[in-house]
């Protein structure tokens, strides 16, 4: 093994440790993917069920790198002007008004109001024009945007430069680290998938979820944490319309801590089940399973 390889070996292990220090319970798959995204300078597409901590990865990565996090939240109808840049029209108008008494030519006025101080940088341009350490650009829930926006994003991600007709081309000095997340509410294009590294995050196994609960809800007793995680894991195996994610487990644990529960009883589960299950049909189904005793709540 060369020394360079040793250094990179350290890097993945180190990354795991750093993620852990930031209270993110990672596993080798996550650390390896992040490391590769940093090393190969490629965007990382993270998919997984709702509430498995996809967005959190980008936030934690920014903290680990000591970089700024720039977030672009996607939604249907999101367009280039909201994502990239827009002119500050109010300010342009004000400027024109103030200049009116002086009466400079229209050409001057135009050059002035279409200059950088009048430019509103939206997340993508912010990431490209960012000074200093490359930021982490989080494109959250890309599956909510339209296909047209996806194509536009691909273009931006491929060369990290933007041309503003009035200003010229703005180029990223160093490529931002890009993380995209998707809940799979629609299929993303093959072109986008090809461009990215890929990480699928599944619901965590018992041990991992337990350690997440212990880290994030320190007030929960050992018995309570284990019982909650055990129950959530069993709920996931049942056929539910909306499967609870880790964030639901955490909400639930936090609620039970507030209620000073130190272990689960059918009554307290019945009262707080809404923290974990968000679908009326699921709630009814699981409540009746618990009442009939088919789903034991106290066991680990």
């Amino acid at each position, binding site marked *: *093994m060369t020394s*360079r*390889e*040793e*250094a*990179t*070996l*350290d*890097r*993945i292990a180190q990354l795991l440790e750093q993620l852990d220090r930031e209270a993110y319970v990672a596993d*080798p*798959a996550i650390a*390896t*993917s992040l*490391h*590769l995204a940093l*090393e*190969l300078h*490629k965007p990382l*597409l993270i*998919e997984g069920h*709702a509430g498995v901590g996809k967005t959190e990865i980008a936030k934690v990565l920014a903290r680990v790198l000591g970089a700024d996090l720039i977030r672009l939240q996607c939604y*249907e*109808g999101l*367009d280039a*002007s909201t994502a990239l840049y*827009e*002119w500050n*029209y109010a300010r*342009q*108008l004000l400027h*024109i*008004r103030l200049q*009116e008494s002086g009466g400079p030519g*229209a050409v001057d*006025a*135009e050059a002035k*109001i279409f200059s950088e101080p009048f430019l509103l940088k939206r997340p993508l341009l912010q990431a490209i024009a960012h000074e200093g350490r490359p930021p982490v650009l989080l494109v959250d829930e890309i599956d909510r945007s339209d*296909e047209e926006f996806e194509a536009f994003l691909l273009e931006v991600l491929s060369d990290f430069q933007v041309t503003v007709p009035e200003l010229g081309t703005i180029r990223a000095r160093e490529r931002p680290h890009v993380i995209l997340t998707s*809940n*799979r*509410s*629609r*299929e993303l294009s*093959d072109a986008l*998938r*090809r461009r*990215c*590294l*890929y*990480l*699928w995050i599944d619901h965590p196994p018992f041990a991992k979820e337990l350690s997440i609960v212990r880290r994030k809800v320190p007030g929960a007793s050992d018995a309570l944490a284990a019982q909650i995680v055990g129950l959530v894991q069993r709920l996931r195996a049942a*056929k*539910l*319309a*909306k*499967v609870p994610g880790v964030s639901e487990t955490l909400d639930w644990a936090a609620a039970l801590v507030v209620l000073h529960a130190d272990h689960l009883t059918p009554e307290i589960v019945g009262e707080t089940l809404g923290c974990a299950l968000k*679908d*009326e*049909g699921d709630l009814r189904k699981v409540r009746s399973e618990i009442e009939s005793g088919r789903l034991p709540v106290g066991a680990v």
Partner: protein
Amino acid sequence: MNADLVHRTVSLCRELRARGMTVTTSHAMDAVRALRAIGIESRERVYLALRCVLVARPEDLELFDEVFAAVFSPPPEDAIEGAVRVVRRSPPRDPAAAVSLSSWGKEGEEGEDGEDPEEVPAASDAPGIAEKDFSAFGAAELAEIQRIAARIARRLAARPSRRWKASGRGTRIDLRRTMRRSLSNSAEPLELRFRRRKPRKTRIVALCDVSGSMDLYSRFLLQFLFALQGTVARVESFVFSTSLRHVTALLREPEYGEALRSLASGVHDWSGGTRIGESLAAFNSGWGQLVDKRTVVVILSDGWDTGEPALLGEAMETLRRRSRRLIWLNPLLGSPDYQPLTQGMQAALPHVSVFAPAHNLVSLRALERHLLA
């Protein structure tokens, strides 16, 4: 880096490609770069790195694991070649059976002659066929019928819908254009420029029964919906008989027809029969996130369910609650004396907002009202 490792990685890429995954040369190059970047060449590291680079969707994980295990099995001392022995499944191809769907959206501009697109194509396209049941056509005629169905769908897609027509002069002021204009007017925004809100696309989820006689009708429906894809709607397509398959990506393939057929024969399990309830429940738990309050869910089936009716009813209830509209298409409804008496139909009907036939061109055409309304 270990030459054997590079060799195996290349084999892995080749094998994955042969098994239908999208693995390009740049993927292979990235894979090698990734191996260099991970440093230690432990089996786990190599596995995680290659998976991160080569897999692009969760459905491919299983295949990747299988091929990885085969290619990276501990080598017999002498031959690495021996490690790469994965059975290749390349189904026989019948070029005649392959109809390209991609042409559905494109062709036809030259042929459009300005006739009223509202009209069912009975008179102009081919007299007497609009109301004939799909199953009554011979194999030779089917291609022609498909072409006509495609044309109807294209017209639907091309027609500017009443709901989306420009409302006067737009709803939002386009500040950028207004500002530009005003510069020539000594900066007085005298003339307002407008822009229109982009129309929202309808989201459609289609769940089609491909068991037995339903196969033919399902194929018509899927093709019809595919032609709406991207223009007026966002369509996700599934087929089921004993189990459920996501086929949206498959429909984009040039040989989709053949692919669908092999799929149908693959999932057929005659002794098991159709498991509608289980398939819908599988959809709800695995793909439920595709359905929201703006989604129209279309199910095509004759309702011959060999599973528990209660399970079907429950799955239907969930679907109804989460979707905007739940449409059940039963081609048998096209025959006048049909009664929806099967247990499956009985369990499903209370949750259905539209119950329609979809057995011929007229009924396919009529679907639009329910889909895009």
